[in-house]
């Protein structure tokens, strides 16, 4: 497997704290589930710290739900993990101490599949990078294709020559024996998340159009809807509220002065760029490395005076240039589109007698109020908040346990079952570190992080500032993306 691609798994999901919305449910009371399959993306797969390894796959919500259901034969496409970081660009991220700052950095290396010879489909069919269309359209994967292709080659094993070739995720779910009587579907995060993490929100390019989403979602639901099967639908959180987009402030205070960072767009009060970022703007984690070099900081405040990159898309070349800024109009597009997706998901749940888990609502509540468990106050803060992993995008073990708990509570309430809720204490107090210690020096760490922008995640704790870069950063890279027609 091309493990490098899993670094970009940070682009593949959004945190989730689930809750239950209206559960319309003409469900027949069911007391026992025998077979459970989870369809989804990197969150469902168990990505944490921008990589997929067995350590975190075993604590992903599908596994926890299966344990609560008493299902012992729940198979996940487990990935090995090595303590030695051989390729920082594709390493798993964790907290590292750099000088006096605690920063995300490489702590381990993903390896190859551990149970790739399983003769049947996996029960966890979460595919990193997957958009909704991929659950039905991706029937032949390319292990060397990168992104969702490589991920599907691991999870679906539908590459040429495989007995699963030609099968989509929905096909494989239906192929399981016995036929699943419980299916969870959490897809759609990546249909908006790529825009949030690249800082470029363009309908039809980095954001799936509503029409495309609706059509493909309906296709997925039609594929998994079977008589006697209970469906659990999880909706999409606000991807502009994850630490990846909320950790870096748009200004800093130095003494009595407040310095608003600079962007390339003009504003109502600034007609000549670069201009101070307007209120309501968000910066992604990658902005921190640039700010440390003085980019985005006015000359008068000791910076270069250059604006932070906004990113963009060239429809003639198909080149997407990632940026680090989400302007208010982009945020508005992502939020309104997410709401539209969620309306579709809610309607699908109602129409199919399914159970809706309102991830969006609970996530917003956690962002505003935190999530307290017996006086343990967790927040959506990066590294120290407890709800997100080190990539600022994917949920931590606690976040995964919360999702599993909401699913179990929903089942118990709607299906009339009495399954035990997961144990949060395990997720809270169990040390989650790779086997062994990563061997990179601090300088190597910085080099590796700066060399891999924008995929690399570099951030200091919000209250800390790094005075100067330790090594020069490479120029901003560009990334080619699939050329698509802009939406109308």
């Amino acid at each position: 497997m091309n493990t490098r691609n899993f670094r970009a798994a940070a682009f593949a999901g959004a945190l989730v704290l689930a809750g239950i919305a209206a559960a319309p449910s003409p469900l027949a009371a069911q007391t026992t589930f025998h077979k459970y399959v989870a369809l989804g993306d990197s969150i469902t797969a168990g990505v944490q710290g921008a990589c997929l390894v067995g350590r975190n796959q075993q604590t992903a919500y599908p596994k926890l739900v299966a344990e609560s259901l008493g299902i012992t034969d729940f198979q996940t496409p487990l990935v090995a993990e090595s303590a030695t970081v051989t390729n920082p660009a594709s390493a798993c991220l964790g907290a590292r101490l750099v000088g006096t700052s605690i920063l995300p950095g490489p702590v381990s290396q993903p390896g190859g599949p551990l149970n790739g010879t399983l003769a049947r489909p996996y029960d966890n069919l979460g595919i990193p990078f997957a958009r909704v269309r991929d659950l039905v359209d991706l029937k032949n994967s390319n292990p060397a294709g990168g992104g969702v292709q490589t991920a599907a080659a691991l999870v679906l094993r539908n590459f040429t020559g495989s007995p699963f070739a030609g099968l989509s995720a929905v096909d494989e779910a239906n192929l399981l024996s016995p036929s699943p009587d419980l299916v969870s579907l959490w897809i759609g995060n990546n249909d908006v998340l790529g825009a949030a993490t690249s800082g470029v929100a363009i309908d039809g390019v980095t954001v799936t159009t509503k029409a495309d989403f609706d059509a493909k979602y309906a296709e997925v639901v039609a594929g998994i809807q079977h008589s006697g099967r209970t469906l659990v639908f999880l909706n999409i959180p606000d991807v502009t509220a994850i630490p990846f987009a909320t950790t870096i402030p748009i200004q800093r205070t130095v003494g009595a002065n407040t310095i608003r960072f600079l962007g390339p767009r003009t504003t109502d009060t600034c007609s000549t760029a670069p201009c101070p970022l307007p209120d309501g703007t968000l910066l992604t984690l990658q902005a921190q490395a640039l700010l440390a070099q003085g980019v985005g900081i006015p000359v008068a405040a000791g910076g270069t005076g250059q604006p932070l990159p906004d990113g963009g898309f060239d429809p003639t070349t198909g080149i997407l240039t990632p940026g680090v800024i989400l302007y208010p109009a982009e945020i508005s597009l992502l939020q309104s589109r997410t709401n539209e997706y969620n309306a579709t998901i809610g309607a699908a749940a109602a129409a199919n007698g399914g159970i809706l888990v309102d991830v969006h609502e609970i996530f917003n509540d956690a962002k505003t109020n935190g999530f307290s468990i017996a006086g343990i106050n967790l927040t959506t803060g990066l590294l120290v908040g407890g709800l997100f992993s080190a990539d600022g995008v994917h949920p931590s073990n606690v976040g995964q346990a919360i999702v599993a708990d909401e699913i179990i509570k929903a089942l118990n309430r709607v299906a009339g079952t009495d399954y035990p809720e997961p144990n949060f204490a395990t997720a809270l107090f169990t040390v989650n570190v790779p086997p062994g210690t990563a061997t990179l020096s601090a300088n190597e760490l910085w080099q590796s992080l700066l060399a891999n922008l924008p995929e690399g995640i570099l951030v200091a704790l919000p209250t800390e500032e790094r005075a100067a870069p330790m090594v020069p950063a490479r120029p901003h890279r560009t990334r080619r993306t699939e050329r698509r027609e802009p939406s109308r």
Partner: protein
Amino acid sequence: MTRSRFRLHRISVSLAVLAFLTAAPAFPSGFQVMTQGAKATGMGLAFTAVAVDPSAIFYNPAGLGWQKHFVAQIGSEFLSKVKGDFEGANPYPGVGVTEKQHKTTFVVPNLYAVAPLTSEINFGLGINSPYGLGYRWDDAENFSGRFVAQNAVIQSVDLNPVLSFQATPEFAIAIGADYRVSKVQLEKNQAGVNPFTQSVVDIAHVKLNSDIQDNHGWGWNAGIMFRPMPQFSFGAAYRSKIKMDYDGRATFQQRLTGDPRFDAAVAAQLPTGEHPVKTFIEFPASLNLGTAFTFPGDFLLSLEADWTQWSSFNALDIHFTDLVGRVPDLHRETDWKNSWAYRIGFEKKFARFALRGGYYRDKTPQPLADAGPILADNDRDAFSLGFGYNTEHWGVDIADLYLKVKDIDTRGVSHDRFYGVYKEAVNIFAFSLRLSF
């Protein structure tokens, strides 16, 4: 000079209440302690329409109208938690987790004196502790609810002077002032997420403590007693709410995790040492209504309904006055409800001896969702038995009251997200010694 006198006053106040405060009350309904006299305790606290001894100052001061001698009464209650268990549930702290409360016997003394001023007017003075709480967990450093509370204490002492006026042989009225001093204490550990291990660890111990001399409040109480015939009486007693503003100290002490990288980060941000803290408690008003019948053969039957305005305790706020922006204030929605207690008691006299018994059902003011490591309360059934011996110049009463709290099942409802079942029972032994002059 003024300052010295003020200090002297503070010291004297401290000494005066020390004996009462060191005997921390516990196991109340809500955190109200109604066992303030052995005779009343023996009758299941159905004493508002009886009020025949100096503890009437607490139960119904109008009862002093029929007490025509100088009487002093001293007594004490010994409150013992005979059962204080918690069985955990998922999702937290988890099935199989069991916890125990510290089983200490608390001594709660009371002192009453009645002095006739005229044939119709009596003066009474009571010192007691009608409100208090002691909720302490064993093995506090490993207690699974330690981030909510390890030890919660409310101590109070009331100085309650009253005047009663017997307007007619059948009717008396009384009014009094209620001066309360109080202190509170809360201990808990502070949790943090170690970013290097992505696990929750104890990073500090926090102790909130107030001084007794800095925290006092005023209220009032009143009562009426109507005895149209020797065989029947009706009594009503009211006690006003008292708002206490507490000034105290918060002490933060770092707990080392064993990870020097994280410990250094915590040390850089933790406000170690003492810091001023403010909170307040609005102790509820109460209205007690009772009636008593004396049947042939010296058999007294007393019935009572008590209302307590617990809705005044709707939130717990703790403000760190010099740590604004560094340590968030604590705010807890308690949302307590007004509650009723229904009591029945009897007394059968045999010459100088008296045998007493009682029962009551006390409805909890605490919503189930609010039950947690600070305090878990529920409806309770209490059974009491008492014994008295009286002469013309002295008397002694003893009583024992067993209080069974209905199991408190917070599974699925706990606001603290601390789920499980609390099982509690309390035994209260009381005695009173009375001297008449």
